[in-house]
């Protein structure tokens, strides 16, 4: 019993941290509609700043605390709101998500740039010299007690703020109905600002409280908060009391599982995956209110022309051939990823671009593809590629079924949870038997892959594999473009535009979702298998959730509804990062910030980078043909056909505008 109590107290101290961090997440999400993936990173930055002030420059602790919590954190929150978030506020859920992912990646980069990661840094715990409180089997340090008190204090302070102050009332009004709150004289912008300031302050408190018990490490501090996400989802991203309750559930669960789960080879991973599993269950079990900010700006999904796509596909293959001919085998191992990772990126186009489903587990599914290929295609059997696509499609379908209840940010969190479960548990399993079949994933750490035998030829060399991947990318690009022009593609877009309307018009939601998830997973799996062939040997780390985030980032930056996004993402993700560092090693720190900067710039270019690039290419083409159309000032829509001649495209534009409402 004493034991049980001890684990309970331990769980409470962990829960206190999750509660502080989770409440910050919830506060920002409800008021601004932004689920901030960079929340932990803000806390990390605060902890580093606090270290710099107290240890680095020797300031007294109260002064440093005041500076970090009352000056630096609010300033940072305001800056983020003004510079990063406001431009994307009006955009879709996906864009807002991507901007926070970009911020996360950028903040880690900045912190590692400023504070050399190889210099050991520690922060003293609070009241380090005071003797811990001991009572029977329970030991509680004053730092832990402080954490619990702070969490309680935060709960009370937030309650008072939200229930008893004008600002709080304004914030609640904005949560309930933003436009209405604006009409009644409240200032939604001010509410947003307050939410960002408070959210950042809560992150800072969390960061400063956990850093002394860990050590200062930019990545770890930024990524620790999956469990806090779970707490926030318990609060349905809305209710602070429920978030606190969720924190207690998660903290207690982690603590009791550590103490009582029996030792064997299967279970340790299960315990580590438990917060993610719980997140998944919480997502499914709790009813979610209508997502905020949905259907705000549905942008039309461009229809690629058959000729244009064919040219693009040919160019893709040509690029593959040129690379294969021009680069050394060593460079091909690196840059061949343009095409294989390009396939993984392309899987987002039908899934996210057409059907509007945000998935954060595409690279993890690519990992499954790699494993299946390594085990079934050990001698390059061509049919194993079909098996890869089939198995991955099946996995995608399995993910899609529970995901039927989820959409928007909840779906993103659900797929992230799936990726975490794969990372922490499935990929780490020793070999096991399922239905009489010996399944061995990354048993021993890595799997090796060889090129396939197609038409009697073994694609073994780096050059052959590069061309092969380019050909596959071109073929799948053609298929995805055909999909957009076909009936199924239009159905998917209808699904994205309004699920309710889609169902009412007789569409089968389950079927459409399962189909698109399976399709995307099949494409991603094929990409994973090709990537494994190029790398010759792969390990689970290459397909981790955190490795997948930058790809998602670049996909959205490229313009997720465009069929050219696969090649763009592959080239942008693999290309500059490696090429720039190779040419100018000093640029490494800067290059690490590139994806982040690109993501943050998304607010200025919500359609992604491909449309401006196409305009540029189109302009160049027209200039070559010598008949450039003069670009006059834009005529307002109501004057079309009056102040300028009616264009044949105008009707389409108007129809779309009416349909999008």
């Amino acid at each position, binding site marked *: 019993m004493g*034991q049980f109590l*001890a684990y309970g107290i*331990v769980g409470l101290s*962990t829960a206190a941290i999750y509660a502080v961090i989770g409440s910050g997440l919830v506060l920002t999400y409800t008021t601004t509609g932004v689920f901030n993936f960079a929340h932990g990173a803000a806390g990390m930055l605060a902890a580093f700043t606090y270290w710099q002030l107290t240890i680095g420059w020797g300031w007294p602790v109260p002064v440093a605390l005041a500076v970090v919590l009352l000056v630096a954190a609010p300033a940072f929150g305001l800056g983020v709101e003004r510079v990063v978030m406001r431009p994307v506020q009006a955009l879709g859920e996906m864009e807002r998500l991507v901007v926070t992912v970009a911020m996360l*990646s950028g903040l*880690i980069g900045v912190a*590692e740039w400023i504070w050399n*990661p*190889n210099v*050991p840094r*520690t922060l003293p*715990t609070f009241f380090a010299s005071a003797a*811990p409180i001991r009572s029977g089997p329970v*030991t509680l*340090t004053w730092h*832990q007690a402080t954490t619990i008190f702070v969490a309680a204090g935060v709960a009370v302070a937030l309650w008072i703020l939200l229930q008893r102050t004008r600002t709080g009332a304004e914030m609640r009004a904005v949560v309930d109905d933003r436009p209405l709150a604006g009409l009644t004289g409240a200032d939604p912008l001010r509410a947003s600002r307050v939410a960002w300031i408070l959210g950042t302050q809560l992150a800072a408190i969390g960061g400063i409280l*956990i850093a002394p*018990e*860990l*050590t200062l*490490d930019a*990545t*770890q*501090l*930024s*990524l620790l908060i999956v*469990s806090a996400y779970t707490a926030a989802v318990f609060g349905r991203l809305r209710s602070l009391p429920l978030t606190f309750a969720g924190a207690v559930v998660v903290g207690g669960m*982690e603590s009791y599982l*550590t*103490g009582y789960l029996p*030792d064997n080879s299967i279970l*340790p*991973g299960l315990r*580590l995956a438990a917060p993610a599993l719980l997140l998944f269950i919480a997502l499914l079990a709790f009813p979610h209110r209508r997502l905020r900010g949905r259907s705000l700006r549905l942008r039309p999904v461009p229809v690629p022309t058959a000729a244009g796509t064919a040219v693009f596909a040919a160019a893709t293959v040509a690029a593959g051939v040129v690379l294969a001919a021009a680069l*050394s*085998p*060593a460079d091909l191992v690196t840059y061949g990823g343009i095409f294989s990772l390009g396939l993984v990126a392309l899987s987002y186009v039908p899934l996210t671009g057409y059907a509007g489903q945000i998935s954060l587990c595409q690279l993890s599914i690519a990992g499954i593809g790699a494993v299946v290929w390594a085990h079934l295609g050990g001698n390059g059997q061509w049919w194993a590629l079909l098996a890869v696509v089939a198995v991955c499609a099946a996995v995608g379908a399995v993910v899609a079924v529970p995901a039927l209840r989820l959409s928007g940010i909840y779906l993103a969190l659900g797929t992230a949870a799936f990726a975490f479960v794969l990372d922490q548990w499935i*990929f*780490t399993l*020793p070999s096991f038997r399922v239905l009489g079949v010996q399944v061995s*994933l990354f*048993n*021993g*750490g*890595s799997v*090796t892959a060889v090129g396939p035998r197609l038409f009697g030829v073994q694609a073994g060399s780096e050059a052959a594999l590069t061309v092969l991947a380019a050909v596959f990318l071109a073929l799948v690009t053609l298929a995805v473009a055909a999909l957009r022009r076909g009936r199924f593609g239009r159905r998917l877009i209808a699904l994205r535009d309004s699920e309710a309307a889609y169902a009412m018009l007789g569409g089968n939601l389950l079927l459409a979702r399962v189909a698109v998830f399976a399709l995307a997973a099949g494409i991603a799996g094929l990409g994973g298998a090709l990537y494994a062939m190029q*790398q*010759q*040997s792969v*390990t689970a*780390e*290459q397909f*981790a959730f*955190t*490795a997948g985030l*930058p790809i998602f980032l670049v996909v959205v930056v490229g313009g997720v509804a465009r069929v050219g996004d696969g090649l763009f993402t592959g080239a942008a993700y693999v290309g500059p*990062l490696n090429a720039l*560092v190779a040419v100018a090693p000093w640029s*490494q720190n800067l290059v*690490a910030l590139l994806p982040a900067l690109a993501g943050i710039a998304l607010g200025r270019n919500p359609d992604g980078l491909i449309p401006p690039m196409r305009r540029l290419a189109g302009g160049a083409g027209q200039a070559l043909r010598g008949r450039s159309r003069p670009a006059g000032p834009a005529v307002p829509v109501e004057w079309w056909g009056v102040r300028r001649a009616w264009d044949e495209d105008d009707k389409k534009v108007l129809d779309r505008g009416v349909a999008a409402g």
Partner: protein
Amino acid sequence: MRRHRTIAALVAVALLAAGCGRSGGSSAGGASAGSSQAPAAAAQTSKGTFGSLTGVCKPGHATGATDQGVASSQITAGVLTDEGFTKIPDLVNAARVFTSWCNAAGGIDGRKLAPNVGDTQLLQVAAAMTAACAKDFVLAGNSEALDGLAVKTRVSCLLPEFPAQVVMPQDINAPLQAYPLTDGHSYGPYTGYYTWLVKQQYPDSARHVGIVYGQSPITAPLVTAQEKTLTAVGGTMAYSGAFPATGVTDWTPYAEAIKSKGIKGLIFYGETQQLAALELVLTNMGDKLDWIDANSNAYGQPFIQLAGKSLAFQHNYADEGGLYPLEKASSNAATQQLVKVFAQYAPGQPVTLQVLQAWSAWLLFAKSAESCGSALTRRCVYDAAVKQTAWTGGGLQAPVNLAQPDSPPACFNVEQATPGGWEPAPFRPNDGAYRCGAPVYRLPAGIYPPPPTLASVGKSMSDLK
């Protein structure tokens, strides 16, 4: 025994920033070259002589482009590292300092050594290895956390390596590898060290040993091997706790489990800073363990700073696997010379355990290459290296038999972390600074994935010219 492994899997969490790196926990900053004590007379040796090895580098008249990477005037040796990711410059420092020192003494029979640094960025091992295959004569003083991913590439192109460190089991005792530390693929690691811990120093702890490790497919076989070894030497595993490689928000549940299960000896397999955090919680709880195996990744000044007050309360040990302790450089001529050479060619750069390992590897390569004279080929240099039956790196380490790479650990030495720094533990040495004749434990088959063979890539020794 000598598994000074970078905890590969645990580094990979930082992929998020796409190429942005951080510590892999392998930095074992020990003696700082800048602050070394006055050089002892023993270190005043003639050029090109290192410790007991004479004529490692000397002028000569070797000529001819006898193999890839060999020209009349220079030899290109590849140095693959994860520096771009981990930001740890140790291996590159070692390569620069060694080649400068060697070239100043006349090179290898007159040919200058040119290090060709290849950065794996952690994940792009295969690409870096393919590049090395196309250019380098051999690899020397290299170490990649994910080396198992490129071992097949290296063996296929018949590139011999003199690694500073071998990490993944797939790379242990791989073909064409001359590793100057014993690391038998078939044998349990740390048998001597664990025997000393649970049989001699802390017999009460034998039935109460726990292991806490970062969960990853790569660490899994290594963790299993350690558990089996500890059991084989008479210990009992009473607790096994995995933690997410991405980090832990609160170590208290782990500390509580260690305390409530009465664990007295703890093997930790993760990043140094994570161990420091766990120990802080244990110390705050007042749970004093008999011993903690911090492993040699913790050997160095960073851990001393990170662990802080825990050091006075807990007993942290690390098996150095027969490498002479750096803090005792003044009483060992070879170590002293290494510190001095570093101070001369790379002032201010720390001499760490990794530097020490890399140095031994470079010495082995240089000595072998030197014996080939003008007819310098991969075959000649590899054959010469594996003829060494008692390699000591001029006195940097306990003797190692390179002719039988798959042999049980021969000698070991244990270091202890104290608030004042690392120092030798009372591990009853019986052969100078080392203790030799550890019990032998053969690992059951199937724990370590086997390394590729020459035959498995369609090659044989006769292909190595």
